[in-house]
């Protein structure tokens, strides 16, 4: 009985302390937590001695458009997740007559050094004869490894356009993809997009210092536009384009855009007017 009493006392003490400590400070209580618990496992690549896990924050499969991917490499021997893996990747679309890559970011470690993050912008879905694969290069226990895995990329179920691949007036091919807001609200949302150009079939560098003008409209509401939008401008910090997207009500919105280069020349897109209800460059959202 006495031991039980002590144990329960101890338990209470532990509980009290752990509940007092703020979430960020106390690493010991987090040890057993799976940091990827709230993420969706898109694919697990199993190899001898290790596995590679690919996660999405909010999607259950690879979809076309801007796709942030979280990566973990598990050492099956030590049961640990690998740090300093120096991951690089290369997505590839295998079409019947040709193959090409896609815009992608570097893969960087997150705050948790065993979790890596990067994004790929898939321009098109795969089908029975055409498919995507990703080649991963990384080091594990001093050994350089390269693996290529085929993945299924599908169109989003809502069918909305969140990536534009187009030829600009400067005869350059661009890929413009919607990043944020993932969960739009009736407010002045922070909006983010990524812009890459297709230098070769394999190289898609980030385009810097252009301007993306936005004009969100509700076609179902007489093409109503919302006030106080801010055009998207380039941020060297994130290598993305940031602006403000104002949404005055819920429903279906078409975000009409114009892409301007450093000199303010329009490369793609038109003004929305009475006679021209939409730009040829646009994103679609609904909430």
């Amino acid at each position, binding site marked *: 009985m006495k031991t039980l009493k002590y144990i329960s006392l101890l338990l209470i003490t532990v509980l009290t302390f752990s509940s007092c400590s703020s979430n960020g400070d106390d690493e010991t209580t987090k040890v057993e937590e799976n940091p990827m618990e709230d993420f969706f496992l898109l694919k697990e690549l199993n190899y001898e001695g290790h596995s590679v896990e690919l996660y999405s924050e909010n999607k259950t499969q690879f979809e076309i458009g801007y796709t942030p991917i979280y990566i973990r490499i598990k050492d099956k021997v030590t049961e640990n997740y690998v740090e300093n893996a120096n991951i690089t990747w290369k997505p590839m679309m295998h079409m019947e007559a040709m193959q090409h890559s896609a815009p992608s970011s570097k893969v960087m470690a997150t705050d948790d050094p065993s979790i890596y993050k990067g994004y790929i912008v898939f321009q098109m879905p795969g089908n029975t004869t055409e498919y995507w694969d990703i080649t991963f290069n990384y080091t594990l226990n001093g050994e350089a490894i390269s693996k290529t895995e085929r993945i299924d990329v599908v169109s989003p179920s809502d069918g909305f356009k969140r990536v534009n691949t187009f030829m600009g007036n400067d005869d350059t091919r661009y890929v413009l993809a919607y990043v944020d807001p993932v969960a739009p609200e009736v407010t*002045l949302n922070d909006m983010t997009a990524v812009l890459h150009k297709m230098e070769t079939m394999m190289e898609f560098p980030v385009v810097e210092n252009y301007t993306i003008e936005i004009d969100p409209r509700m076609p179902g509401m007489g093409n109503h536009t919302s*006030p*106080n939008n801010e055009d998207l401008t380039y941020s060297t910090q994130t290598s993305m384009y940031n602006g403000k997207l104002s949404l005055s009500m819920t429903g279906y919105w078409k975000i009409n855009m114009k892409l301007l280069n450093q000199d303010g020349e329009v490369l793609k897109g038109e003004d929305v007017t009475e006679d021209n209800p939409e730009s040829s460059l646009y994103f679609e959202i609904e909430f």
Partner: protein
Amino acid sequence: MKTYSNRLAMSMLSQKIIVFFCLVCLSGTVLQAQEKQIDSLGLLPVYLDEVLLIGHVKELKYQTGQKPLATLDEYLEGAQKVNMIKRGAYAWEPSLNNMTSERLVVTIDGMQIFGACTDKMDPVTSYVDVSNLKEAQIQSSQQGAVLGNTIGGGINLTLHKNKFENNGLTATVENAYESNNNLRVIGADVGFEGERFYANGDIMYRKADNYYAGGGEEVEFSQYEKYNVSLNTGYKVEEGKRLLATLIYDEAKDVGYPALPMDVSLARGIISSISWEQDTFLGVLTNWETKGYYNYIKHVMDDTQRPDVAIHMDMPGWSETVGFYSQANYTNSNHFVTIKADGYYNRSYAEMTMYPNNPNEENMFMLTWPDVRTLNTGLYLEDLISLNNKQSLLLSTRFGVHRNTVADDFGFNSLKIFYPEIERTNNRLLKSFSAQYKKDIHAFTVSVGGGYGERAPSVSEGYGFYLFNSYDGFDYVGDPDLKTEASVEANTAVSFKKKNIELKLEANYFYLPNYIIGVVDSEFAPMTIGAQGVKIYTNLDHAQLFNTSIQTEWQPINRLVVKATASWHRGTDSEDENLPLISPLAYKTSVSYSKSGYSGTVLVNGNAAQENFNPTYGEMQTDAYTVVSATFGKRFFVAGNNLYAKAGVENIFDVNYTTFTDWNSIPRMGRNMFVTLSYSIN
């Protein structure tokens, strides 16, 4: 999205309970100091601008001129100082000194109540019926501050209450018919009066079809249907101490608004109060009255009956208010002091759901009133000083604290689109002062006065989100950072009374710093399909209003009364542009004759052409018009009880006309014949 209303209703209920307890505690502490009870307002008739008897058929029987079962709107329109803005045949909006809802304080028996419609389709006067009421007390400018913070004045609709007299059971049945819009009115009233207890219940039902303008043109969507049930009881605890309770349930359905793009499928009001009255209190104070009240308004706009709507919308709104007031008088040889403490807490919430024509698209939803909570508490002091037999001075002041909070996150975030730095809560101190001097000089009475008052922006002015105004075709957006609007007012009146003739000349002038009105902001695009643009509620530097009138009454022979009034008004903003909805030269004359149960009245009224109008606010010039009406009444005795019959013709010559008060210039009713029968059993 649809769950918003339910969630709010729940939270409001708990809030209600909390506030009610606060109220009880507060009244407990405030009221340690008071007592005697007479109808306090009845003591100051000299300073009440106008009292309009509405009443019960019992008191109205011998009145001439008015239709006994007219709507409250029609009664108010008969008042000298009041104009009624019309968007259809129902729910007219009162305007006093050419100022409407936001600038007035309109109370029901002293209770604050606010409409739930973002488009002003439900002025508070639409939630009562004449069967509930005793009179309308109309007080100009800061004299209305006894009711609350105001700029233009106050209208208090006092409820009918029975007496503690041994009259036993009484009953009245009323019935009316009007030809023009096939209006049917049925009313019944049953009451019991005893020495210690009274109870009275009444019901009134009105149903009208579309009306026809002069010349026979049908005004589509002008129908309405309304019923009103009320109950009031009183219990005399002991001599000089009474407990009173009232409950009103008012519901209008299928109300057409020909001047607007939408109708109303439901407008429901529940108005309740409990009051404690004591003739004397603590030996020093008299007429101590304390009231706690709660009212609930639900208003549902409906466009499903309209052909050619660009997009179908649901626009329900809710307004709930809990409040209290406690007032008492102190009297000595030449002072008559009124002390009043009051407070209310209101919640205004309105939403809009739009159904896209493309069925694959999600519904579009926005909050047009983001659940704005208003807490207003005030202290009012008034001293009527009789300097001598011939002179008196009335001083009054009110201090109020007004607090607005945006309670709903969705609505708060929505407003950030326009105001990224918006704060949840906004506090204002509202002040009011006035002085009124009156002197009798032989047959003349001269009065001069002045006042200063302030008001907070209304919910729409402060927090409205894309409110479409069909008058000027703009979407209105509120501004939470609006400055407090103020009023500096001066007035003077001279009246002359001798034998059978009475003459009164009156004028008042308002200088209104920070006048709030919608100003076009071309930077913004409208939301409503077909709207012209967006107007943001803005403080103008100032606006000015001038009203003047002449009233005469002459009794050339016994039983014959001739009345004539004329008024002229002017309103301009800081750029000297005309303000909207300002009356042109208006006149009204009547000749009444009554004898042994018979009564008859011929009424002529009209306006000159509207010289000063402003197309920026959607106004079109209205032409001059003259309308003639006549009524005839007769009292019979049937089986020892009173049967009163009244009949009349309005707009005898079927003139097709519209006035400055008619929203979108919809034509007024053409020739209309009415007959009213009321039978009371004692």
